[in-house]
Structure formats: C-alpha cells, structure tokens
C-alpha cells in the first residue's frame, strides 16, 4: 500500500509526503520538499551589505521580520556596529509581534481545521469558520481583532507588517510617535479577551498522543525569554554560543528534497520552535503564560509520570498558544516603556546607514518556528562575499521525518485515509515553513 | 505703493508682531489656523495652535497652500449606496473653516487661477467652492527671493498686486525698537484689510494697538519692493515666449531634456500651484456595499494621461514634457493669463532639476 500526498495543504510552501506499507512494515517514508529553490545564498553574493535585509525578508511571507532581524544583527557584527538600546527594544517589539502573529496564523488558519473540521469533511479555514459552533463563537471576528492588534505593532515600527521597510542595518529610519504607540496599547487591550479565548480554545484541543525522540534546542538568556539573542541550549544542557553554530551543527543535503536536514553534529534528531522554547525557557515566561506552560511541560500534577518533559510534537500547538499569551504581555510592557520614553517627541530615527567594513558576522535568533541562523562575510567595500542561512524547518526536518515514521509505525493498522490524515496533522503540528526551508 | 486712494488707506494699519500674534490667536476661535512651519524653501503649511509655530520668514513650501487645502490631493466626490441605490455627494463645506496665514503672492495668484478653473465657466465645483468660501486668506508679501523664483516676470510677485480674492495682506516693514520677540526683535507689519470679510472681522477686533501708516511707510515699502525686484536671478522674455514655443514644438532642447533627464515622475506637476488636472475613479468595497467616486491629483507627465482607445496622444516623453512647459508658458488663451505664477517649485522639486525657463530660453534662441 502506497500512501502519498503530493501537495500538503495548510502549510507554508510546497511539499509532499509519501510512504509504503508492505506486510505490516513501513517503508520509504519521505517528506519531499519540492518548493523551488531561489538560491538566496547564491543571490546574496555580490550585493551590498545594507540590501541584505530587504532581500532575505523575501525568504518568507510570514516571518520576514525574523530574517531581517537575524541578517541585520549578523551584518552589524560583520561591520562592527553596535545598535542603540532603544533600537534593540524596538527590534524586540518587531520580533514579538511577528511571532505572535505567525502563531495566530498557524493556530487558527493552518492547524485548527485539522481538529475542528475532522470527521465533518471540513478542512479549510473558510469551511471551519462556517461550522455552526464556530460561527457562534465568533471566531473570525476574534481572529481579525487579534491579528489587527498584532500587525498594528509590526506596521507601526516596520512601516508594514509584511516585508517591513523602516527596519534597516543600523536601526529604524522612523519610529511611531507617542500617540500612535498609545493607540497600539489600547488596541492590544481591546483584543486581549479575544486573544485569550483563542489561546484557551487551542489549548483545549484533543491532540493525538505521541512521544518523540527529539532533543529540544533553543536559545537561552539570563533575565528573559530569549528571542533575538542568547546562548544555545538543548535538553542536554548548554551547547555553546551563536558563533559556535557552524562548529556545533551540520547541514546534510537530501537527494529527494530541495531542503537540507540540519542537526547537531554529534547526531540525533532535534526539535526547535515553540515547544522547545517553552520546555527550555518556561521560567522566563510572563506570569499569565507560566501556569499553562507548566502544565504543558510537566503534565497535569495528578498523572505526573517519571518521564518529566513533554515530548509530544503535537503539543507544539499548545506551546504556541502559551507563547501567544506571553508575547502579548511582553508587547504591552515594551510599548508602555516606549511610550514613556517617547513622550519627549519622536525618538531620533536613523540618518544614514553605518559605514561598510570588512568582517564576518553570524547571528542566531528564535523565529516563530525555531532557530534561525544567518552568517555573512563582507568585504572592504561592503559587498557580501559569502552567505549562509539555516532555517527553523531545516532544523526540524529530520525530526519531522523520524517522528512521522514512529507515528505511522505505531498506527500501522489504521485505515489508509485516517493514517494519511494523521500523518499530515503531525507535519502541520510542527508548523513547518517549506519556503524558508528551501530558500 | 503709490496711487493708493484715501479710502483704501483707511483699511491699513501698522501692527507689531505681538499684536498680530494675539489677533491671529483670537481668529483661531473661528478658523483652523494653518501656516508655514519649518523655514526655508521646504516649509510646510500645517495646522497650528500657536503663532510661534509658524516661520513667517519661510521662502517656499513643497505643496502650495492653495492647492493643498482648497483642492485636496484625494477627495471623495460621490458615494453610491449599492443596496439603497442612492447617491450622495458632499457635505459642503467639508470640515471647518480655515485661515491660511502667510500665503505668498505667487500662491495667492495661483489660488486666483484655480478659481478660474473650478469656479468660472459653465460648471462650478461644489467642493472647491465651499472650501474657497470657507477659507480666510492672509497673504504675506515676500521679503526675500530664491534663486528659482520668477514671479516678477508674470506679475505674480514679489508684492501682491491683486486687489481681491483674498482677505488680508501683510508686509513686514521693519522692527519695533525695544520690544522682545522672535530673535530678540518685534517686527512690524503693514496690515491691509482687503476683503469685506476682513473689514467686518476687524470691526470686532480693535486694531487699537496699531498705528496709522504714514507716507514714509508707503515709501519704505516701495523701496523694499524695488530692492527685491533687483534681486531676482531668473529672466525670460515672457512676451516672446509664446510665439517661439508654438512654432518649434519639436525643438531639440525639449527632446534632449526629456530623453536625458525627465523621469516622467510628475513631481513638477504635483507641486505646481496652478496644475489642476485630476483623475476620477470609482472604488467599490470588497463587500460591494458602497461605491465611491474619488478624484486625485493627476499629471500630464504620466504615460496613460492622454491614452485613448486606439492611441496615445502623448506617448513620447518629450510630448508630455512639452505639454507641461507649454501649459505654463504658452496657452494664455485658456484662462487669459499664463499658467505659471513663477514660484519655481517645479524646478526645485524635479529630481533632476529640469528648468522650464531654461528649456524655453533654448527654444527661443
């Protein structure tokens, strides 16, 4: 029996999955990422250092901010530029609002139809929204109010929410004024209940049980939930610094796929993203998110088992809901601080980009879907000579395939259609981005 | 300023800046005060709440005050409620009454030009008319001239000669001794109440702190005007230009300028205080509940401007540039005067500095 999906729906980018079951055994399981490559690493060679963020933003239509932020920091390291503290704060706002927004897309648009629509023959956001209980709960209205509140922040600081323009190497070419910032705060306030409803609804989904062998990997930083910088930690402890990345990790090309598989050199599958972050960094979460995070990571107190950490990749969905709560809170606080410092009028926006200098720089950040690595070599004239980009989905690729094997083997007797559906659900739970993975 | 008759003089007073400031702030009770903010050649007409926000020494603005506030860049002129099947247009006047403060002579003349476009002829535009009637114009004679100004060639400046169509004319005529104000000085302004509206308003507000101007004040103004006239750097034979242009529509100066420098970006037209062209288009909500007819500034430099079924009358770049140059310097038959007021904005804001007077001069040679 051959099971295959040519073109997975409700994921970003193009990929398929196929496997065979012969004599009760699983064979030839592949996630074939056929997303056409654009060769960013090749295209960037010969471009000027300050063009890089605008180019790499176009790797992805949902996390352009992450690519911009990561490349900006790598370039700034390469040319030896230190950004101002206010710039760092504004960059956090960009990152947080984007991660929350991306999670919202995944939760409601991409993942929810798997659970709400299941068995009812519904599997798109549009159809799910038309289900009677969904219409009643006013999901679409909530979804749009939450999205507008979050995108409003990215838009205010970046110029637009998708492929922002005012975030450049060196800082921001313009920043919102105090009144605008206050409006953002009140929009967050107005949509907060809707956001909590969505987070609650998502954490109550009945997720399939499955245990993965993946090791969680994330950034970690003292004093906060690490996103834009930090040390590399894994379930096994400290691994190293971002500059050690290329020493610690290795990329392998798969002959059947346009994406590469990346993992720790010492071997084994790793998982990055919301679940890994929540597992490794939950003590830094905002108070509102901490309790659900604890429940998620440690399991409900009553049925506490020895296997302390949550290793069910389906729970990435729950972890995203937890992060939605967390980043919402963080955005509110950062905006309050920004508004207070802004009441002297506009913060001075950047005038002129920092000058070129020869150098190498690499940066590692937490994108919505996990670890994102950018590294550049820039020559004296500011021209990029080498570029290397490793994306979250490349980090998760190996784990996705291995977990899928495990899941299929555990359910090998299941009717074909249901097994296929379950397989797709697992892939979606990872919230993969195939556009990023290929780039 | 000779030849002023006695009755006109009755409506003139010399006012120190601080009194003018108080009077303007009182005027703010009836009008939204709007004046030049940020000095130099790139000031912006902006709504203000305090006299001090303005820089009355400004030389020019990017968007002309008249065009910006009387003929708005984008405006909904008609709305159609799809389910009800009814149209609405208006309201007139849209918004509050506005006072434009410190409008230079060229820009006042440009408003008079826009009046001819939108109010003369068989059809008056109700939006423009309502806004025009609700706008109080306080003109300000220039006290300096930029290198790009050529208002003197078309009689549009540097002192305002028009006798109606605006409300008050200010001229800075010196400083009051002793008093402290901007830069440690308190300037004195000759205030002329031109319109009936202005005279009525000033009946209410006593100009008691002002002085009656004397002959020497008028003489001083004449001297200042004469000095200003000498400081212009641009020159062009405005009489000869018309016949010269029309006889050489394919002159190489036009073609070369167009090909080597004109970007067809339309900045010249956008900043021109007399350019009135606009596009009209219908927009419908995605919910199909309402259609709006919107007009927005348009420009003859744009390639589709003269596109019709089966052809484009100005497909060539130089034909479009020619339309601009001719419309400003020739085509006097259109409204009985030249299309330019000599403010120099099209030159200043052209990214490649294309200068219509240079093109015309080359074509006349």
């Amino acid at each position, binding site marked *: 029996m051959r099971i295959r999906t040519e073109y997975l*729906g*409700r994921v970003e980018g*193009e990929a398929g999955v196929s496997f065979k079951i012969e004599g009760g055994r699983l064979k030839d399981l592949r996630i074939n990422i056929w997303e*056409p*490559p*654009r*060769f*960013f*690493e*090749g*295209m960037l*060679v*010969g471009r*000027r250092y300050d063009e890089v963020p*605008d180019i790499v933003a*176009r790797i992805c*239509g949902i996390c352009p901010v992450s690519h911009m932020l990561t490349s900006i920091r790598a370039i700034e390291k390469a040319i030896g530029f230190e950004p101002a503290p206010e710039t760092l704060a504004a960059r956090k706002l960009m990152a947080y609002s984007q991660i929350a927004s991306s999670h919202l897309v995944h939760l409601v648009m991409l993942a929810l139809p798997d659970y709400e629509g299941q068995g009812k023959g519904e*599997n798109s*956001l*549009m159809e799910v*929204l038309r289900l009677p209980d969904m219409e009643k709960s006013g999901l679409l*209205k909530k979804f*749009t109010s939450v*999205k507008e509140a979050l995108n409003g922040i990215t838009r205010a600081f970046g*110029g637009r929410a*998708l*492929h922002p*323009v005012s975030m*450049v190497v060196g800082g921001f*070419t313009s920043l919102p004024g105090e009144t605008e910032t206050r409006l953002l705060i009140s929009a967050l306030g107005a949509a907060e209940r809707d956001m909590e409803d969505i987070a609650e609804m998502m954490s109550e989904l009945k997720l399939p049980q499955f245990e993965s062998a993946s090791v969680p990997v994330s950034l970690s930083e003292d004093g906060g939930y690490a996103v834009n910088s930090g040390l590399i930690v894994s379930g096994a402890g400290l691994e190293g610094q971002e500059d050690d990345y290329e020493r610690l990790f290795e990329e392998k*090309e798969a002959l059947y796929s*346009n994406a590469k598989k990346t993992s720790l050199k010492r071997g084994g599958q790793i998982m990055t993203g919301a679940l890994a972050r929540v597992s490794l960094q939950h003590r830094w979460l905002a108070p509102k998110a901490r309790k659900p995070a604890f429940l998620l990571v440690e399991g409900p107190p009553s049925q506490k088992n020895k296997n302390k950490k949550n290793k069910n990749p389906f729970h990435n969905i729950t972890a995203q809901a937890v992060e939605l709560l967390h980043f919402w809170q963080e955005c509110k606080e950062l905006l309050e601080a920004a508004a207070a410092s802004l009441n002297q009028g506009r913060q001075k926006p950047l005038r002129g980009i920092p000058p070129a200098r020869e150098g190498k720089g690499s940066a590692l950040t937490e994108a919505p879907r996990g670890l994102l690595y950018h590294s550049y070599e820039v020559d004296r004239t500011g021209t990029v000579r080498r570029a290397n980009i490793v994306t979250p989905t490349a980090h998760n690729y190996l784990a996705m395939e291995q977990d899928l094997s495990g899941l299929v083997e555990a359910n090998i007797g299941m009717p074909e259609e249901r097994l296929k559906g379950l397989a*797709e659900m697992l892939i979606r739970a990872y919230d993969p981005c195939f*556009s990023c993975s290929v780039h | 300023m000779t030849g002023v008759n006695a009755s006109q003089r009755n409506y003139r007073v010399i006012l120190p800046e601080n009194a003018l400031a108080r009077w303007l702030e009182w005027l703010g009770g009836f009008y939204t005060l709007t004046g030049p903010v940020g000095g130099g050649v790139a000031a912006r007409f902006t709504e203000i709440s305090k006299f001090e926000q303005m820089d009355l020494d400004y030389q020019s603005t*990017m*968007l002309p005050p008249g065009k910006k506030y009387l003929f708005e*860049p984008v405006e909904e002129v008609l709305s159609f409620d799809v389910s009800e099947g009814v149209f609405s247009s208006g309201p007139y006047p849209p918004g509050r009454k506005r006072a434009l403060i410190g409008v230079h002579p060229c820009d006042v003349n440009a408003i008079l030009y826009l009046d001819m476009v939108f109010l003369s002829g068989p059809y008056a535009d109700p939006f423009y008319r309502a806004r025009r009637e609700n706008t109080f114009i306080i003109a300000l004679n220039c006290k300096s001239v930029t290198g790009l100004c050529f208002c003197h060639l078309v009689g549009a400046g540097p002192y305002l000669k028009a006798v109606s169509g605006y409300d008050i004319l200010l001229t800075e005529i010196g400083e009051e001794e002793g008093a402290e104000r901007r830069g440690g000085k308190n300037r004195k302004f000759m205030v002329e109440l031109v319109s009936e509206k202005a005279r009525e308003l000033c009946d209410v507000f006593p100009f008691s702190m002002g002085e009656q101007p004397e002959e020497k004040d008028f003489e001083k103004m004449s001297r200042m005007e004469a000095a200003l006239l000498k400081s212009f750097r641009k020159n062009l034979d405005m009489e000869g230009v018309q016949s010269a242009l029309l006889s050489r529509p394919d002159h190489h100066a036009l073609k070369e300028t167009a*090909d*080597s*420098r*004109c*970007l*067809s*970006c*339309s*900045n010249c037209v*956008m*900043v021109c205080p007399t350019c009135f062209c606009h596009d009209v*288009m219908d*927009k*419908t909500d*995605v*919910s*199909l509940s309402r259609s709006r007819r919107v007009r927005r*500034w348009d420009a003859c430099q*744009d*390639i*589709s401007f003269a596109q019709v079924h089966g052809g484009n009358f100005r497909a060539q770049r130089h034909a479009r540039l020619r339309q601009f140059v001719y419309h400003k310097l020739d085509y006097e038959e259109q409204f009985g005067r030249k299309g330019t007021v000599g403010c120099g904005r099209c030159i200043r*804001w052209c*990214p490649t500095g294309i200068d219509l007077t240079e093109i015309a001069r080359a074509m006349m040679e």
Partner: protein
Amino acid sequence: MGARRPRAGFFKFTCCSGCGFELAYFQRCLEETLAAFDFAFFRLASSSGTPEGPFDLSLVEGAVTEPFQIIELKKIRQRSKVLYAIGSCAITGGIPAIKALAPEAQVEGAAYKERLYGLASTRPHVINDYVQVDGFIRGCPPGERDLFEALSSALMGKDPEFTEYSVCMECKMADNKCVLVEEGLPCMGPVTNAGCGALCPAHHRACYGCFGLMGQANIHALKGRFRELGHFSEEDIENRFFTLFGALGKTERK
C-alpha cells in the same frame, strides 16, 4: 449578491508565499473576502479543493523557475476566466529574478552540492512570458489598493483599474519630505510603480523599488542623478537600484 459566489483559485510558484498571506491574512478586508469568494483552490488556506477549475478568478503568485510550472500555468490559464498576476515575483521576477544576474552554476553552487544534479531550476521568468495575464496586482507584498480593486472588480464583473504612475505622485499627495531632493538619498520613487502609498519616503527611507519599474521609467536619467549623489559605485547603482526588483526587465522605457 445572493447569487453564486465566484470561484477563485490561488496558485503559488517560486516565491515567499507572501502574496498568499496578504490575501488570506494581512489585508484588512479578510472577512469580506472570505464571505464573497468560494476559494476552490488555495493550498495555503485549504488542504481540500482542486486545481481543475473552472475559476472565475485566478491569482498567481511567484516567478516561473521550473519547467513543470509552465505546464501548470497554461492549464490554469485555460481554466480561468480572469487571471491576475499578483506580487512582484510573478510580475517582474521580483527577488527570485536576482538569480538571473550571475552565471547559473555559480548561484546554484553557492547553495547546493550533491543536490545540484537533481535540481530543475531554470532562469526565472515572469508569468506573462507564458500566458496572457489580465492584470497586475503589483507590490512585494501587493498593495491593498490594487488588491481590493482586483477583488471588487472580479465580484462586479468589470475590468479593474490598477495604479500605473510613479511613487513620487503618491509621495507628493501625502506631503512627505522628498528624501531624494531634500536629503540626497537614492530614492527609486521616480521610476517605481505606485500602489504602496509612498511607504518608504513616509518612513524617511529611499524607495527601493519593490513595486517594480513603472511603464514610463527613464532608467538612465535616474542613474545619472544617482551618480551625481556621489557615494555610489557604478555597480552599486546597477545592483541596488535597477536589479533588486527589475533584474529581468533591464530595458529602457518611453
């Protein structure tokens, strides 16, 4: 309305999926869009649906970089009453088209080693190189004005009216500070198609041309202006200002 909702298809080729996200998420008329159209094929939003058509409206994002896409594209055209290209990748080649500027082996070799021989990537092309396109919803990401014009026009059954003038016009209408004339920044606005509302200049930034060159762009005149600014090498000017979103269309315009 009441009548049948128009069947819409959304198709992705080589790109970042941003146009899809713009349509299904970022834009401000999401509720109305979902209510008005029957999205019969839209992989980003639905795992069901079929590309077989017929479609009243098809939107195609992305550049064409692999042979199979040409076949798909032609099928989509046949099945669609109206087909619009959406986003810079589909219309000008966008960022993926940068690949065309350097030798193919060099660009591809910088990203892959063993996989190189399994790749089917070609020189990027815009979609109207292969099929007739009824209109262009420009931008990277597409601007809301043109997107709404496309959607409402499809619903009304009329031809849309897309923006076709320079960013400068929008910039002036917004009374922005001109970053080129006042600050000497290398702004691409004068030759770039409008639709964004002059976003970059409004944020004190030089336009980098993400809506693509407008029909009447005078490229060499603006190059000359950038040379005068003084701090850009010839290569920079070429690269930065005329190949970022126009790598495929290095032609002079009227």
